[in-house]
Structures are given as C-alpha cells and as structure tokens.
C-alpha cells in the first residue's frame, strides 16, 4: 500500500487511504522526508482520518518524521485523528510530543501559513 503524496505550493500532503503496515509507515516517513528535501517544502500534512488504530509504532514513526521535517526547517501537521483513536492513544500512554495536530485539512493549512492561533 502506497500513500499518495501531493505537492501543493510550498506544502506537501500525504493522504493515508487504508490501514498501514510497519513497512508502509517507514516508506511514508522516508518518502516525505526526501520530498521535503528535494522540493524545499515548508510544511507537511499527514491525513490519518481513515486510520482506526494508531499504535506505538505508528506514533513513533510519525514523531520521527516530524523531527526530520523540523530539522529541515519545515513543519508537520497531523490531520484527522478520530476521537476513539485519540482516546485509545491516551490509554496506551502514546504522545505525539510537539507534533502539531488539526481537525481538518483547512485548519492544517491555516496552521502552516499563519502558525497557531
């Protein structure tokens, strides 16, 4: 399963379409990191709306991705964590650290353009 990566101006949007294996997650992380490097993107949006599980590996991989992107001078926003998934993550003790989150794509783009309100 490959996650489509779309370039939109200074930003890059990865829209997850179905459940991801660990290998898929690693490919997504590396693909986005290299995209940001090549195109000098200013921001990365990862849409996780369809994910019904964000376990420890997914959380760690997304945190790693955000860290790589940050070192390249860009920002990452995670979009669409479902309420039930958020609850499970809290119960599991999983944290996204300093990774920004938004409810939808519009809010994520706003966050990247103008920073947090």
């Amino acid at each position, binding site marked *: 399963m490959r996650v489509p990566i779309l370039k939109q101006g200074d930003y890059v949007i990865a829209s997850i379409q179905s459940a991801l294996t660990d290998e898929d997650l690693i490919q997504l992380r590396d693909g986005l990191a290299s995209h940001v490097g090549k195109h000098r993107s200013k921001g990365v949006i990862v849409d996780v709306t369809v994910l*019904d*599980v964000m376990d420890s590996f997914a959380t760690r991989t997304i945190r790693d991705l955000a860290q790589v992107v940050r070192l390249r001078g860009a920002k990452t926003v995670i979009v669409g964590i479902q309420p*039930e998934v958020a609850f499970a993550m809290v119960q599991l003790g999983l944290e996204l650290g300093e990774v920004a989150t938004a409810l939808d794509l519009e809010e994520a783009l706003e966050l990247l353009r103008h920073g947090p309100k």
Partner: protein
Amino acid sequence: MDLNRTNQAIPVIHDTDIVEARAAARSLASRVGFTETDLVLIASAVSEIARNIVEYTKGGEVILSVIHNHSRLGLQVIARDQGPGIGDLSLAMKDGYSTSRSLGLGLPGSRRLMDEFRVESAIGSGTTVTMRKWLA
C-alpha cells in the same frame, strides 16, 4: 455464523500479520456488538501484543474467541509465542520499560485498554498473553 463456535487463529510472524490480527479482532468484536469506541480499543490492544510477538520472537499466533459469563458476552484474545520469554514480568508491565527501542508501552498500555489481562511467561518457553473485554 454461530458466534459461539467462532475460534479464530491468526498466525503472527511478519509486520503485515499485525494488521491482519487487529482487523480480525475488530471484525469479530463488531459481530459481538461492541461499540465503535470499544472496537478501536480492542484493535489497538491487539496491535500492541501482536507487535510484541513480531518484535521479540520468531513467530506466534493470536487466537480470538467469543466468551460468555452467564448472559454476558465478551471477546477473548490470546497471544502466544515460543519466544525467549519475559525475564521480569513486573518490570515488563511498567510503563516505559523496553529491551528494544520501542516505547515500552505495549503490555501496560494493552492492560489499560481491556477489562482483564494476564501474562504467563517463562524464560525459554515463550509468553502467553490473555486479555478479555466484556460487553457493557
């Protein structure tokens, strides 16, 4: 399908099997009648314990079954492997303890997601995790 006779075993060897195991658990739990929130909690717990099998052993299996307690229905998940076993169980149940580079939240985290949780393990003879969730 007769839920009472459902006893599903999913081999867990590769990372792709983690996705299989949690999808199967979700699907069976959904037939039992769990809420959407519970389905996510169950799938997340199964993901973590299946991940332990992939991460620390050469392979194992996740066995799903529907259970009864008087008129109450529930889902039982057994994850077992013939791996190295866990040396110090009380340490392994602590948040943040890990012998790999994982976050060390798998066992204690899964316990918080389920209603009942038991780990049996012996060095050299593998680990069996049994967890249950009951319909509210």
